[in-house]
């Protein structure tokens, strides 16, 4: 492989390959064509993270496309992690968009099934699911490594993507989650970003299984962290978000912090988590999803001791 043995040459890949503890962030594109708003959001993350996930119609709510927002980010010198869901596009549109974003400088992508459109603001829409997330991973790998489209035709300048996938250790059936992770890695995922973790005992158990199965040798696993802004947010997530595991003890802890101090308590918990992940066998980094809280990322990164971010050539 050219490019010094790198698959994509992305910053995230270089950081992980050099053995640094990776730190990625997230940015949801605006509900409109407001580029200034987008820039304002991702500027908070500049220099604080190794790459920024750009969500793709997250929770099935229509927004500026992740492709365009990723390209704008790349053009502004911040590395995007382009998210793509299987809900909204068939294989033609997916391959076209992968080539498109690659040509605009995108080097990481995260392959997802996507929340069902029933959750979103256009529940009337037709869902696509031509291929699923595992088939998407395999497709991107084929495009990159074999230089071929799904139909085996040659690609004129293959897209060299660093391939990511998601894992939710907290969905059911619990015993199967690590096998699904294994399937994603077999399909070609280079890195994994997990669902937000709140139940630490369960995550420790999950990562232990992944280590025992040798999965953490084959792919980099980034632990998902979302700081809670309030006890109410925690309660909402516990109740309303399928596949989210928020222990009662955490809700109590936030409540106990008292009025006006819950956000700080949420950040404290997130920092404790990050501290533990740094030492945890099998965890290669943290993916910080500070939802509509991008401006807090510099502070959290600072206090978690992950700054400055490594520069790898």
């Amino acid at each position, binding site marked *: 492989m050219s490019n010094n043995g790198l698959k994509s040459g992305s910053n995230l890949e270089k950081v992980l390959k050099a053995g640094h503890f990776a730190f990625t962030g997230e940015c949801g594109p605006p509900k409109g064509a407001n580029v200034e708003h987008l820039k304002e959001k991702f500027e908070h993350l500049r220099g604080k993270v190794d790459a920024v996930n750009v969500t793709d119609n997250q929770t099935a709510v229509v927004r500026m496309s992740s492709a365009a927002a990723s390209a704008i980010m790349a053009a502004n010198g911040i590395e995007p992690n382009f998210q793509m869901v*299987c*809900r909204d596009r068939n*294989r033609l549109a997916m391959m076209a968009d992968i080539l498109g974003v690659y040509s605009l400088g995108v080097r990481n992508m995260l392959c997802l*099934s*996507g*929340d*069902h459109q*029933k*959750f979103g603001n256009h529940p009337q829409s037709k*869902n696509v*699911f*031509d*291929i*699923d*997330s*595992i*088939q998407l991973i*395999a*497709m991107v790998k084929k495009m990159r490594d074999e230089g071929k489209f*799904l139909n085996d035709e040659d690609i004129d300048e293959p897209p060299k993507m660093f391939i990511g996938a*998601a*894992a*939710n250790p907290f*969905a*059911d*059936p619990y*015993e*199967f989650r690590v*096998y*699904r992770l*294994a*399937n994603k890695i*077999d*399909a070609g995922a280079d890195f994994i970003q997990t*669902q937000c973790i709140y139940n630490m005992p369960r995550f420790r158990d999950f990562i232990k299984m992944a280590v025992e199965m040798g999965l953490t040798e084959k792919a980099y696993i980034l632990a998902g962290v979302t700081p809670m802004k309030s006890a109410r947010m925690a309660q909402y997530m516990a109740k309303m978000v*399928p*596949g989210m595991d928020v222990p009662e003890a955490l809700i109590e802890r936030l409540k106990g912090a008292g009025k006006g101090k819950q956000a700080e308590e949420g950040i404290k918990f997130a920092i404790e988590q990050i501290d533990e992940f740094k030492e945890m066998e099998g965890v290669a980094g943290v993916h910080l999803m500070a939802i509509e809280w991008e401006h807090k990322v510099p502070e959290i990164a600072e206090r978690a001791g992950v700054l400055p971010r490594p520069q790898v050539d």
Partner: protein
Amino acid sequence: MIIADRKSLEEILDMIKDFKKILLVGCKGCVTVCNVGGEKEVGVLAVILKIARKKEGNPIEIDEKTLERQCDPEYVEQIRDIFDQYDAVLSMACGVGPQFLSEAYPSQRFFPAVDTKFFGGAVQHGIWEERCAGCGTCVIHHYDGLCPIARCSKSLQHGPCGGSADGKCEIAKDVECIWDTIVKKKMEQGRLEDLRTIRAPKDWQTARDGGPRKSIREELVQ
């Protein structure tokens, strides 16, 4: 079989509001079995429509007829002598019925009285569930006889997705996550390894995506 639900009375009344005399045609096939468009339901709907129209001061005349099957030209012929005696014909068969009727009697107008929903069966008295999406290439043997194409909300060939919780699908607490059931069955039977196979993207050409479909049985074609 094909499962349908009757349209609301308001919708049916609106469809036929301009007509004074209609023929209401039922079908003795699937819609009889799922209690939506057989002889009995035809009788009930006719009565309700007549009462509603009478109330509006705009009475309607309705004749009833239930065919063996509306999806078979042989039985569709059974209304040849009477079809043109009506302003319109309302069919209680699945979506296939009123189309076969329309094709056989181009001068008449046909309206659907039911919404055709899915291929499925009764899981208990009065409750029907979807089982097959007619994808044209059956693969349920990979999933222990359970179909994720029709029964997973995302038609995932590798599930369950991250939204599966307590055996339920992320879309609603009253929807089974079929992938949870598939995985549990495999685990119970010690065949979890079956689910470690990465499957190729499905070829949807045999499904509706390949265009309207046809089935030709050469030996039967005369």
